[in-house]
């Protein structure tokens, strides 16, 4: 079942799972990032449970699509997606950022099988994805390559080197996704270092640009379809999102970029999402085999 192509309805449910996982694992670790993981949860879920051909039970499947998070700090969402998708037991999420766990603060290929390339220093990932896309084309593989970037990250010049390269080599098997949540560590992106007009920039770098509400699953699926149908140039999806999405007191507040909820806050967040810290932690703890977790209705 490499490409799950779940329905919009099922994806919405799954995204809720992922958000619950994020809160629960952060509450446990008491270290890590809340804001970006929550803003990426919807398109991340669409990627892992609909769009991409991945095969967690055979990590080196030559037919697999390749994904890479250039924003390495959003490990809470990456690991939740991987766990839910069956890369490793969900219980492992509770070892996040701990010395003896296999889930490092930033993605590490050698600690977490399934990660293709380690990351954590911003701005490098799109170049990595370019290499993956070019290598795939050299092999005549039909594989697609997905790269998730941040909006603050667009300030790194290397992004524009990679943008130039991908268009020059007409890498239409490459799809970039920008988590356009308008926040970065020091505040509003437009206040810290304005990146607008972002779509014009990507167009001037000869990419096919798709703008979408990054919390509208149906729209996201359409965007992925449009990217897939675009030939002769790479596509970038500007996913307009809200930092901290799904937790009332985190939404649109840059202060949640890099901090975890404390226990009380986690409890409150999970309550808003229809569960409790104890219940959801128990669900994770009980999940000791890697497999695709069933849908919301079945599980809760």
């Amino acid at each position, binding site marked *: 079942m490499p490409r799950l192509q779940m329905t919009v309805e099922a994806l919405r449910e799954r995204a809720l799972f992922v958000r619950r996982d994020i809160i629960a694992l952060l509450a446990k670790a008491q270290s890590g990032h809340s804001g970006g993981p929550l803003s990426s949860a919807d398109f991340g879920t669409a990627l892992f449970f609909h769009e991409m051909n991945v095969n967690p039970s055979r990590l080196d499947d030559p037919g697999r699509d390749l994904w890479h998070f250039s924003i390495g700090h959003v490990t809470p969402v990456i690991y939740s997606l991987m766990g839910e998708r069956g890369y490793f037991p969900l219980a492992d999420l509770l070892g996040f950022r701990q*010395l003896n766990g296999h889930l*490092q603060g930033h993605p590490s290929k050698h600690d977490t099988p399934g990660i293709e390339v*380690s990351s*954590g220093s911003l701005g490098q990932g799109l170049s990595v994805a370019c290499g993956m896309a070019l290598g795939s084309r050299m092999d005549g593989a039909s594989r697609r390559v997905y790269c998730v970037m941040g909006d603050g990250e667009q300030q790194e*010049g290397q992004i524009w080197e990679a943008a130039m390269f991908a268009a020059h080599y007409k890498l239409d098997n490459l799809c970039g996704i920008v988590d356009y949540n308008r926040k970065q560590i020091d505040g509003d992106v437009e206040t810290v270092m304005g990146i607008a007009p972002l779509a014009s920039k990507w167009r001037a770098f000869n990419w096919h640009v798709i703008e979408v509400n990054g919390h509208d699953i149906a729209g996201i699926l359409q965007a992925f379809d449009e990217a897939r149908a675009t030939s002769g140039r790479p596509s970038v999806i500007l996913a307009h999102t809200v930092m901290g999405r799904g937790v009332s007191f985190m939404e649109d507040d840059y202060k949640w970029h890099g901090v975890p909820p404390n226990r009380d806050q986690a409890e409150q967040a999970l309550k808003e999402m229809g569960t409790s810290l104890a219940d959801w932690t128990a669900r994770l703890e009980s999940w000791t085999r890697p497999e695709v977790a069933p849908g919301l209705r079945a599980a809760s």
Partner: protein
Amino acid sequence: MSGTTKTAAPVPPAPVNLAKPEMKRTREGFGHGLVDLGERRKDVVVLVGDLTGSTNVNLFAERFPDRFVEVGIAEQNMMCIAAGLAATGKIPFLATYGAFASCRSADQMRVTVAYTDLPVKIGGAHGGISVGPDGATHQAMEEIAIVRSIPNMKMVVPCDYWETRKATVALADDPHPNYIRFGREPVPVVTGPDTLFTLGKANVVREGSDLAIIACGVMVYEALVAAEELSDRGIQARVLNVHTLKPLDRDQVARAARECGAIVTAEEHQIHGGLGGAIAEAVVQSYPVPIEFVAVHDRFGRSGKQDELMAAFGIKAPDVVRAAERVLARKRAR
């Protein structure tokens, strides 16, 4: 508070309760040093790459907003903007994580800053493994090697809050480029506001002549603890705080080699090219003696808690004690 003109040598170690030291963040020393400077001189400006809070330059930004420049996530740009500011007569301090300050903008540091010899001051935060849960990518452990190799650069790794604060101030007076490394988590305070700090001069923080433990950064505390433990066994270790890695105080190092005949180096850095490398280079050129290295053994860091990590990577006081035993055995065997 001036870093270089207080009480004269010999430098008394501040009265430290090694068993229960006061804990303070070195990055706050950097932030407070910048504020000290901001008050004293108009030409000091501060740049940051979207890490205002983590590098503690927020303290300066709040007080001197007109001299604070947010660059966003663009370290290469920041290094060269600092150079341009220096070219117009400013004394720019820039701050980002040490991993990025030393690596992401290494070419800019080499060509634009160091080759031009501009007084750009580079603040590398989150130095060493003690950064903790962020893991390997954010744990700067190659900075000493990189910065030491570049001509015109100076490199300072202060041992605690006070020394970081004084070093920050002292670096502004040096008309050349330099780099200061500090950490994230609170670490033991082993100096006081009046302890002498002179750029390029090592401090003997404990006398002894059975062996010398030469340390920098947070490892000065670990060295002191180790020396105490060794003293209980009748071994008197001299402890040298080499806060300035470049230029190295070659005289003090040679003296330590000559008078002690055995050395342990202790650093929160990769084993190649760091403090240990600098001391080895100096010693073989002056007075060759056995040296044991306490350092990170050429491997990447990982997520964990400060203390857990230091223990797991073998850079706590007991590791220093064991290295001392090894080097003393070698000294005796010569």
